[in-house]
């Protein structure tokens, strides 16, 4: 599904070129659950954003479903975001002016899904995450964990093939973090490819593979020994 070859990301100033990612080779197959770990500033978010096509690599090759990404046009990128990729953020990034229900509904609107079907899909999510009672509340009226549930619901309501999560539990209590992780695991079992960034060893155990990133380079890439929980 994802094939990165000798990928660089750098920022140029007048005199220097600062590498954030350097010589990344990474292949992620459909159905994997990968955790990216590493110290702060190692380039994890940058890598995830490049994979999610929110940012561009400076050099190297990136094939997404066997297609070179640099060739993908704005319109096609919107299509990919709509149909194949879901995002979960550390800071939730819900739309403040929309209710829980409307936040979850938004991707479906852009997908052009019709009223009735849309309703049942959103209802399904509310059900699944146990937030039916909260559907008419605004984000600021929810706790962090609840907001992140909405964030996850919004990311997966369109049934993407790939879910990208950048420290999804970073702002949450351990307990809330486990709930999210359980959901991720279940989704992966149903066939969704997941790439997450986390600092927590415990959460990493939910996945199948751990990539260690240090100073913009892959330091290690191992399968998770034993299944947790």
């Amino acid at each position, binding site marked *: 599904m994802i094939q990165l070859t000798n990928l660089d990301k750098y920022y140029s100033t007048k005199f220097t070129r600062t590498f954030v990612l350097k010589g990344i080779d990474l292949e992620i197959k459909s159905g994997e659950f990968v955790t990216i770990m590493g110290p702060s500033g190692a380039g994890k978010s940058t890598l995830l*954003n490049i994979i*999610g096509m*929110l*940012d561009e690599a400076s050099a190297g090759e990136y094939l997404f479903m066997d297609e070179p990404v640099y060739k993908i046009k*704005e*319109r096609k990128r*919107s*299509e990919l*975001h*709509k*149909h194949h990729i879901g*995002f979960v*953020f550390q*800071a939730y*990034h*819900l*739309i*403040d*002016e*929309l209710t829980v229900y*409307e936040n979850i*509904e*938004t*991707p479906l*609107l*852009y*997908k052009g899904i019709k009223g009735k079907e849309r309703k049942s899909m959103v209802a399904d999510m509310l059900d699944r995450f146990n937030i039916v009672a909260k559907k008419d509340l605004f984000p600021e009226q929810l706790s962090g964990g609840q907001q992140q549930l909405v964030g996850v619901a*919004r990311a997966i309501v*369109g049934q993407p093939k790939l879910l990208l999560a950048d420290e999804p539990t970073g702002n949450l209590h351990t307990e809330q973090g486990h709930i999210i992780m359980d959901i991720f695991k279940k989704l992966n079992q149903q066939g969704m490819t997941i790439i997450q960034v986390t600092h927590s060893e415990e959460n990493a155990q939910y996945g199948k593979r751990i990539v260690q990133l240090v100073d913009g380079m892959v330091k290690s890439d191992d399968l998770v020994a034993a299944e947790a929980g």
Partner: protein
Amino acid sequence: MIKNYLIIAWRILVKYKAYTIINIIGLGLGMACCLLIALFVHEEWNYDRFHANAEQIHRAYVKEDYGENEQFFNTVTPFPLGPVLKDNFQEIVAEVRISPSSTVVKVGNDQFSEQLMIVGQDFFEVFDFELVAGVEDQVLKQQKGLLITESLATRYFGNQNPLYQLVSIQIDQKFEGFEVVGILKDPPGNSGIQFDLLISDLNLPKFFSEYALTSAWFNVTPETYLLLKQGTDKQQLEDKFPTLFKTILGEEKYQNSQYHVGLQPLTSIHLDNDFPVGLASVSNPKYSYIISAAALLILLIACINYITLSVGRSLKRTREVGVRKIVGATRRQLIGQFVGESVVVTSLAALVAFWLSVVNIPLFNELSGKELSLDFNLFTTLLIVILIVVVGGFAGSYPAYLLSLFKPFDMLKAGHLGNTKQNTRKLLVGFQIFISAFLIASTLFMRQQLHFLQSKDLGFQKEQLAVIPMSASGTGDLVEEIKEGFSKAQQMEIELASLPGVVSSGATSHDFGSGNWTYIGYTDEQGSYRNFYLNVIDEQYLLTLSVDMVEGRNFSSQYPGDQKTGIIVNQAFAKAYGWEQPIGKRIPGKNFGQHQVIGVTRDFNYASLYNKVEPLVMVMDPLIIFEGSENHDISSSPLPKLMVRFAAGTLSETMEQVEQAWNRIVGWGSFEFTFVDQTINAQYQADQNLNKIINISTWLAIIIGSLGLYALASLAMQNRVKEIGIRRVLGATQSTLLLLLTKEYIYLVLTAFILSIPITWYLVNQWLSNFEFKIDLGMETFLLTGGVAIIVALSTIAYQAVKTAFLNPADTLRSE
């Protein structure tokens, strides 16, 4: 999807109420201006189009060309023109002549001064003026039949049925009985042809000589309207005219005068300034352009507010846009959303605009001299929809474009977007200040000029001076009538001399502010064509006006010769004729009667200050001049008037005594008077209205612009709270911080103001070029404008700046 957009739009509007209100008020004011102006322009463009045959109706005009300085171009025509054209060309279905006549109407014991229209019998075949009572094809066949408008009927007869009422109309100093046989709807406001009373052209022989009506091809009185057969080519028809007029006038007269008759489409009369004004009203499109431009500028300022505020606030919306992009929104969908939002705001503003227009339409009508009304019809609905779409699209698209441009990655790292578009915003706000400064300076200069017009020394004293017409009938032998009027005026003068409230009184042919004085053209002894203006006066006239003599003396009863042979000229005349020693000179035209210059007056402004003071001749007996005149044009009534100067204080009492004297001496018609300073001021009405409009525009621009600046400054200051906190911790004083916060705005205002100076200078000078007498554009006014702009801008942002500078740094830094 749309629903989702609308929901979010509405919630954002409610959440940021202050911005919403500023935007809606600003856009509402701007759109209201545009709405009113559009109604105005729409009416101007649709003038005279309500006649079913509008496209087939043409007005005839006549041109004569005798060589340099001797061309005549008239849209009033000879009497025989209409009938002759109709008889000779089968393309002409009908012909209607319209001749005005000032007269007095007696209804019971009441008398009214009226403008009577004598119209052709096919009036209703050609035009679509509505008859509410009476039979269209009969009412004008009756010689003694009178048609009056509904509003006049109410004035004359109140609630009584006006039909078949009897009234008397003064014709040639006698009153004749007429019967009301038809009631007309008042002519619509967008009709060039306006009237209160109509009588049939069967009455023409009572007003005009047989010769005038059938053979006077070089005298012009009525307007002639022709109804052409459907499909007639105007050009082809006009091409047939020369042959006809060669025959009628004879080869020699035809060649001498280059007699040319042409047709002007009815629908183009109102806006065509290349044609001389006839009876139908003509508007100066320049004023429409100026007020349309003012309205658009105000709307533009309001749009800029919307743009700068949206962009300023977009900081807070970057995350929303980023998220939308990530879940798959295309750029086009995002632009659609933002434009949609501005359409919502604009629609709300349109409601405000509609309400403001309805409330202010009386004021607008007063300023524009129209009778517009704002009804819900197809035109206004369409207009409002177009305004919403255009303004919404214009105001919404830039912020939308900007937001949709950013990469979602950058947007989620909020704070990144803040400074990138500062410069564009500054440019836009600078442009608002530029427009405001231009408007402020323009309105100040216009006011100065108008004040100058009112206070300029005209060479005579216009205060406490009234004009009382001596005769109201416009018929018979003009010279005889003028003589008679003067003798009545003389008797009045003797009567009035005994009144303590009257300082002095004198008689004249022409008054001020009601059109050109009599124009005289002649060929001098060297064979070149020359001209001057003429007035007939008596000994008391110049004294009453307090016009100074610079040489010689005034007319005097001590010199009986003055009556027949004395003339007084003005300085402009002496100068134009190169006379060093004017006294005793004679006008160099051989046919003038025996005469000599006995005095030279100072150049007093007998015409408006739009014109320079042209050579003027004043006589007691006009015959000596008319004998030698080849052309004369009497475009304002030369019938004698009495100028009365009142002493201060006892005006109303004295006026009653004057009226009693008038009743004894003149005795018929109705007593009327006007004050010279008022009629003189009225000449500048159009420019006074223009000044009012620019004045209102200026206030609106300042208000809307200040609201925008206030909101923008509050956004900008919010972004600097942290910076200011740090600076204070580092030891900056509050005054240096204030300076820091306001400095950039002062620069902005100064730059915009300086850039506005050349534009203002150019455009105000353009306007001033209408006037022969005008002010100089002083630097003080520009400085005043700059001062006002800076003070307004500073006081607008002062609150925000002070608030920011005085914030406790502990509070601002802790929250970060």
